């Protein structure tokens, strides 16, 4: 049964190849069936494997398969192998399930697009790469998936390539993540050089024996991998690409830039947990990067006017929570939040797509309003998603996972008050911006009138995701609320169990504070956008108010800094070196060739006698060579 695991990344890969070669000749229903169907089949196989894994697990809850040798060079022998444990199972279940729903949604959302086959081909390529990433048993194979998702992301952000703004966004995404990828590669070199292998389990076994706790090399390797994760997951300081990546179609934003690709960094650190435990400095970097990112993105999210950009900053912020969790030894907490976040963030993005469709492709929230009565289904699912995002107490999945993280931030030996406080402030901000979105779009006076009725391919995935946004939290409750610890029981077979330093009373108090934080955020949003809208307007009119607004709106000026200090000097230098000496050399070669071609062309006069002359001349030379040699 478990041997079928190879089908899970292979089916979307076949879908990609098929659609690439034959896509332009197929009919639309055929493309939909192949594109979405390959992912659907993959999801079915995943479900079967997950069921087997839970009910009749393999020995020690892990099993590995090796399918082929990749290369064998001077002792470097990576293989195409799959390592299946609880962590991998959780990842593939979420990825294939959410991915399938998004593919179904895309059949209606992208239905009128000319590049329909191309879209599904790229989406399938992405699914295949992501699944390879999470199933790989060695870091090189993981890097293959890593690069594959980067490529698919570039292709999909720039999907509507005729608009140069989209191309710029795609290139920006690719370049920024490339910085992370380069660091990742150096980290791989370091690991191989010192440990002689890139197989993940071997690394985790050997590292503690080769390196002492807190050794310099281990920390360096861990930090380099962290830079790679930071790039891919859009954390500080490489978070600048994600808001611009919203230029791609909404299903792309949902799948890649919310639910799956941006969590690749989280997966990487969770997978290499042993390395980070061995390098506590690196781990605390993870936590602090997570915390600062979640605050920075939270502040930026509350002033965004574009619906998708707000959701993008929200994603950056929520992944910050996951990094924070990883940094304070809440490995399972990070994974739980990843799963829940995938559900509600995909839901929010897909609903945003429906909203944008209904208001004739207007993405500015300030121009929307009162859509509650006009697209009621979308309103309800968006409300559920926003509540999950804000971690509304007890009835949403976000509450349980965020609470788990905050509890560890306080109570774990690696956590401290500062991290916890940052998380709480972040919770207030999250509640604020989540409900701000709801109130701006769905309440108030209706500025745009519409009679948009989303079809079943859009509505059904929305409803399913909304269902999960409520109920997927209940499988893991804090100890004071109940004894269902199904999730952590499962993941503790693969991830380290964290020590808790505080007791149940503290836990209860913290739960109350966390719930209060979300509700405070909700209340502020209510005050500012429903009860007294002038409040926000007046605040903006004051000069510190508008300066702060501008600052937060532009992502705390990171784009400005990068453009002024890195991009512009580089492009200036490149342009300056455009026609330098070395170029003259190459241009000179081309020039000489052209002239020589012209000269030789002149020899062909079309005149027979000239050719005869050439023949005789050649004979002369030949005889001379023969006679005088």
């Amino acid at each position, binding site marked *: 049964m478990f041997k079928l695991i190879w089908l899970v990344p292979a089916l979307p890969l076949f879908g990609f190849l098929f659609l690439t070669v034959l896509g332009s000749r197929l009919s639309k229903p055929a493309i939909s069936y192949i594109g979405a169907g390959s992912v659907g089949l993959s999801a079915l196989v995943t479900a079967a494997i997950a069921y087997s894994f839970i009910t009749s697990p393999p020995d020690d809850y892990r099993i590995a398969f090796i399918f082929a040798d990749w290369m064998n060079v001077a002792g470097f022998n990576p293989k195409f192998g799959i390592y299946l444990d609880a962590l991998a199972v959780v990842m593939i279940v979420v990825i294939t399930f959410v991915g399938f729903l998004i593919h179904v949604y895309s059949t209606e959302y992208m239905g009128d697009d000319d590049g329909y086959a191309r879209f599904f081909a790229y989406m399938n390529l992405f699914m295949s790469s992501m699944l390879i990433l999470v199933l790989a048993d060695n870091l090189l194979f993981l890097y293959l998936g890593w690069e594959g998702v980067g490529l698919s992301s570039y292709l999909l952000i720039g999907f509507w390539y005729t608009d140069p703004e989209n191309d710029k966004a795609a290139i920006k995404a690719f370049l920024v993540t490339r910085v992370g990828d380069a660091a990742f590669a150096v980290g791989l070199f370091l690991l191989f050089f010192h440990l002689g292998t890139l197989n993940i389990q071997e690394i985790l076994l050997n590292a503690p024996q080769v390196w002492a706790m807190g050794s310099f090399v281990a920390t360096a390797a861990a930090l380099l991998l962290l830079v790679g994760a930071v790039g891919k997951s859009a954390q500080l300081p490489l978070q600048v690409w994600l808001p611009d990546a919203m230029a791609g179609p909404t299903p792309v934003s949902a799948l890649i830039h919310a639910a799956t690709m941006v969590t690749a960094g989280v997966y990487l650190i969770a997978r290499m947990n042993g390395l980070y435990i061995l390098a506590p400095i690196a781990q605390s970097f993870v936590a602090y990067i997570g915390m600062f990112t979640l605050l920075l993105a939270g502040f930026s999210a509350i002033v965004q006017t574009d619906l998708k950009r707000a959701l993008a900053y929200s994603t950056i912020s929520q992944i910050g929570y996951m990094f924070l969790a990883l940094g304070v030894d809440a490995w399972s907490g990070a994974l739980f939040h990843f799963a829940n976040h995938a559900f509600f963030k995909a839901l929010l993005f897909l609903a945003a797509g429906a909203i944008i469709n209904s208001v004739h492709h207007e993405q500015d929230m300030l121009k929307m309003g009162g859509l509650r009565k006009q697209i009621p289904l979308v309103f309800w699912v968006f409300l559920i998603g926003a509540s999950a995002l804000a971690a509304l107490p007890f009835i949403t999945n976000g509450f349980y996972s965020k609470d788990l993280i905050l509890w560890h931030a306080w109570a774990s030996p690696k956590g401290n008050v500062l991290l916890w406080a940052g998380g709480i402030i972040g919770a207030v901000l999250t509640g604020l911006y989540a409900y701000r979105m709801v109130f701006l779009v769905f309440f108030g006076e209706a500025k745009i009138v519409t009679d948009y009725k989303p079809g079943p391919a859009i509505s059904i995935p929305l409803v399913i995701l909304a269902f999960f946004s409520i109920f997927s939290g209940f499988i893991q409750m804090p100890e004071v609320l109940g004894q269902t610890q199904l999730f952590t029981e499962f993941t503790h077979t693969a991830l380290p169990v964290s020590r808790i330093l505080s007791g149940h009373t503290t836990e209860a108090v913290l739960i109350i504070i966390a719930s209060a934080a979300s509700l405070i955020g909700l209340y502020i949003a209510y005050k500012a956008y429903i009860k007294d809208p002038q409040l926000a307007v007046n605040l903006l009119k004051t000069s510190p108010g508008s300066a702060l607004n501008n600052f937060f709106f532009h992502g705390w000026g990171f784009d400005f800094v990068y453009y002024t200090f890195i991009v512009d000097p580089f492009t200036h230098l490149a342009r300056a070196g455009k026609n330098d000496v070395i170029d003259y050399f190459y241009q000179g070669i081309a020039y000489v060739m052209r002239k020589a071609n012209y000269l030789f*062309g002149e020899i*062909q*006069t*079309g*005149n027979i*006698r000239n050719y005869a002359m050439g023949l*005789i001349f050649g004979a002369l030379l030949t005889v001379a060579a023969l006679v005088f040699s």
Partner: protein
Amino acid sequence: MPAPPFEYGLIVAGILFGIGAVGLLVRKNIIFMLMSIEIMLNSAALAFIVAGSRWGKADGQVMFIFILTMAAAELAVGLALVLQLYNTFRSLDSDIPSRMRG
């Protein structure tokens, strides 16, 4: 009877070849160019016969027969082409059909 010294035979063949070559290069009329080619072929045949005589074998004459055959066939086709050329260009000047240039 002793044959003439065969270097002289080859020299004569060479001179004849040279004359034919000069005729090929200088004359514009295609008929004359073909005649010059025949002269050159003839001189080659002479050279072969001389060589065959020097070694006392029949191979030289065999080669001569082949040259003869080849000259006949080539001339037949060549003259047919000349006829076509004349029909197209109405002139036997070889400088006129020179469109294949460049």
